[in-house]
């Protein structure tokens, strides 16, 4: 058999495998055209995880004209602001693109990615709602084994983005980018299966699922349950131990993360985008038992110096909602409390007169 025919055979079988997997991906993860993007749904989509959902799906927000709100933060913001309800309250499409346990650098990267995907005229009609708590200001080397955030990792996965560390942007124009994301469906599906089926087995086998060990209530339950719970003293103690291990007992909060916050505020101001910084509450028993809050407030105030004079930046303080009945674990709000968060934020945002597009 001549070499050319042999190569054609290999290419042909490869293509058949590709087509089969491509077809299976539509059966396993039917394509949907959500009007509202919500990273809470990421696991049910072919993107599998919130960072991958943001990296390969969020470009869709650019195609919708008019005002819009983008919620960005960690899992408390993910559960605390349900986008469909907020869309009704605010009268404009609201997308929740929060990530799981991000740090501020990762959120800053996400904000740049999202803002760069919007044309300037739409950017000025966009409001970013940035949910903050001290958990986002950890040393990235403690947060991620390699020191590289999950979003950065996702942006590098398929080679569709360039300049990932500084200012990530798609290598190709939107039609080509969208087509390539579609063509990559087989490997998106395989990555999702790996993340949901194989990785947890590897992790538990290696006894590395720190959340699951430390916090019996948390236990990745954020996607399943948002009902009220009264934590026992033993559960609170266990949660506090988990957070101490996660944050590093005696390890100070990372100054680079506060610098990233300051940079993000400057960036939003420069771009003319409206930014609502929401100070999220954590239960008083959690906040008062750990040593981070005082230094967090001090460093955050330093990072946000000058914010008051910025017309397009507003700060919304929800930290007084720290009663334990508002939380179903050590950080995440119950659904009732979330509705309260949403109302308060919506009221403030509707009052907020940021600079509109000309």
């Amino acid at each position, binding site marked *: 058999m001549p070499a050319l025919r*042999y190569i054609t055979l290999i290419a042909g079988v490869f293509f058949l495998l590709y087509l089969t997997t491509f077809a299976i991906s539509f059966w396993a993860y039917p394509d949907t055209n959500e009007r509202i993007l919500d990273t809470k749904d990421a696991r049910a989509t072919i993107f599998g995880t919130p960072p991958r959902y943001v990296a390969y799906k969020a470009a869709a927000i650019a195609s919708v004209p008019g005002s819009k709100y983008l919620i960005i933060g960690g899992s408390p913001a993910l559960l605390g602001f349900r986008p469909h309800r907020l869309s009704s309250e605010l009268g404009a499409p609201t997308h929740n693109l929060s990530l799981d346990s991000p740090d501020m650098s990762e959120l800053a990267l996400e904000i740049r990615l999202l803002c760069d995907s919007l044309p300037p005229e739409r950017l000025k009609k966009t409001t970013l709602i940035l949910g903050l708590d001290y958990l986002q200001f950890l040393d990235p080397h403690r947060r991620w084994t390699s020191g590289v955030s999950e979003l950065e990792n996702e942006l590098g996965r398929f080679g569709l983005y360039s300049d990932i560390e500084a200012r990530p942007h798609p290598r190709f124009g939107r039609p080509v980018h969208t087509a390539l994301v579609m063509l990559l469906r087989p*490997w998106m599906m395989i990555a999702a299966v*790996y993340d949901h089926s194989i990785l947890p087995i590897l992790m538990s086998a290696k006894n590395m699922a720190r959340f699951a060990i430390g916090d019996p209530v948390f236990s990745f339950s954020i996607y399943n349950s948002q009902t009220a719970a009264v934590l026992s003293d033993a559960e609170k103690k266990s949660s506090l131990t988990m957070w101490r291990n996660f944050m590093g007992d005696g390890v100070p909060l990372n100054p680079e993360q506060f610098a990233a916050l300051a940079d993000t505020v400057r960036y939003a101001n420069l771009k003319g985008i409206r930014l609502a910084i929401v100070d999220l509450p954590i239960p008083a028993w959690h906040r008062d038992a750990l040593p981070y809050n005082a230094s967090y407030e001090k460093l955050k105030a330093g990072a946000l110096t000058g914010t008051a004079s910025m017309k397009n930046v507003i700060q919304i303080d929800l930290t007084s909602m720290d009663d334990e009945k508002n939380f179903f674990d050590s950080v995440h709000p119950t659904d009732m409390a979330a509705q309260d968060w949403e109302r308060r934020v919506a009221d403030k945002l509707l009052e907020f007169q940021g600079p509109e597009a000309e």
Partner: protein
Amino acid sequence: MRLDSAQFLLLAFTAVLFFRLAGRTGRSAVIALASFAFLASFARTPLFLVPIVVFVLLGYCALLLASRYPQSAVLTMLVAFFVTLFVWIKHYSIISNLPSLPFAYSTVGLSYLLFRVLHLIVDVSQAVMRRPGFASYFNYMFFLLSFSSGPIQRYGDFQDQMEQEPVPLAIDDINTAIDRILLGYFLLTIVDACFQWIFAKLSVRFIAGLAMGDLSPRAFTVFSGLAPVYMMHVYVNFAAYMHVIIGIGLMMGLRLPENFNHPLAARNFFDFWNRWHITLSEWFRDYMFNPLLKALLSGPAPANMAPYLASIVFFATFGVIGLWHGTSFAFVVLGLLFGSGASINKLWQTALANHMGRPRYKALQQQRWYIQAARSLTLSYIAVALTCVWITPQTLVWLLTPRGVLLGIGTTAVLTMLGIVSGYLWEARPHFRLPNIGVRTPILAGTWRAILIFTVLSLALAVNAASDIIYKDF
């Protein structure tokens, strides 16, 4: 451009396609264009690659000089000039007070460019070979498959293959090439990713612990795990890269030199370097060790001093090999450790041969226990020495204190013991053959390889944890 990126594969296979289609003269143009595209991918600013390009252009000027003035004084001056230029561009810490270039620039591949340019200057000056033409020189220096991380192919070997009529691609060649590339990507994206993950997980806590004065048995245990894991990370990462580029070379019809030959089976320090980064070892043997030893032996020293002079030259050669890996103080320590390892090994061989007599010493070298012990000690020593590459400068300073040295010696001893036990267990492993799954017919073989390609690609994209080629930074 990373070697595990889609861009590199696209570029490489486009080059393979056009290289195969082009005639003998067109092939040089294909290599030049592909190499230029690869080089350009590293350019972040217009000036980013200027030092590298100027270095290569100066290299050609030096070749003109060397061919015209073949005197040894000129050769010495040219070699000294390029080594100095290299040290200055790389901005070694020993010259950190000297002014550097006032713009950001890349040094990717510079170490390998130095080896190539010195090889050409020496060989042209000594009339071992004729001066290459500029186009051939450019292609040799910037050849996309070996530019960033080797192998250090000799010009004659490279040019002979470029000038030969392309050999028609046979099915066996395709299979070998695909197998090498797939093995490389599997090692890089899965096996190396595991080593890297374990290393990253352990090293952060170990370094933080040492910084806080943690010298507990746990820290010792962690270090005993970290040192071999890092060595395996380096080995698998570099070996994987070699598999990929050798495979792509085979598709082109070019045979790149092998850089590894089962280094974990090495029986002593020198054997290790004959099996690990082979082209680097051979380069140092030909252009540093042999000339230095020859110069020393031509002096007034008596003949029975030869082994001791050799141990001095080994110290110098391996010291430079260690120093070559990086620009900071850590690599001076690495050089000292490599140099000491080589000269102590040579002195041990000499002393034992003198004491026992050569026949008995040779018999001892064939003993299983001696082979296992020597192999384990060699690998453990190198694993511990490589700590210099990954440890923070502050922690390295601590490791150089008496307690740190004790930690290093203790770890080497423990790893040697474990290595001996592992060696015996490895030898005693049950041997079995994989069942023949009938991939002898071309249709089955081709189908099997297509499935493998899809599987490895899927695994690589799903795990998404490959690290860049470590040797690119050296």
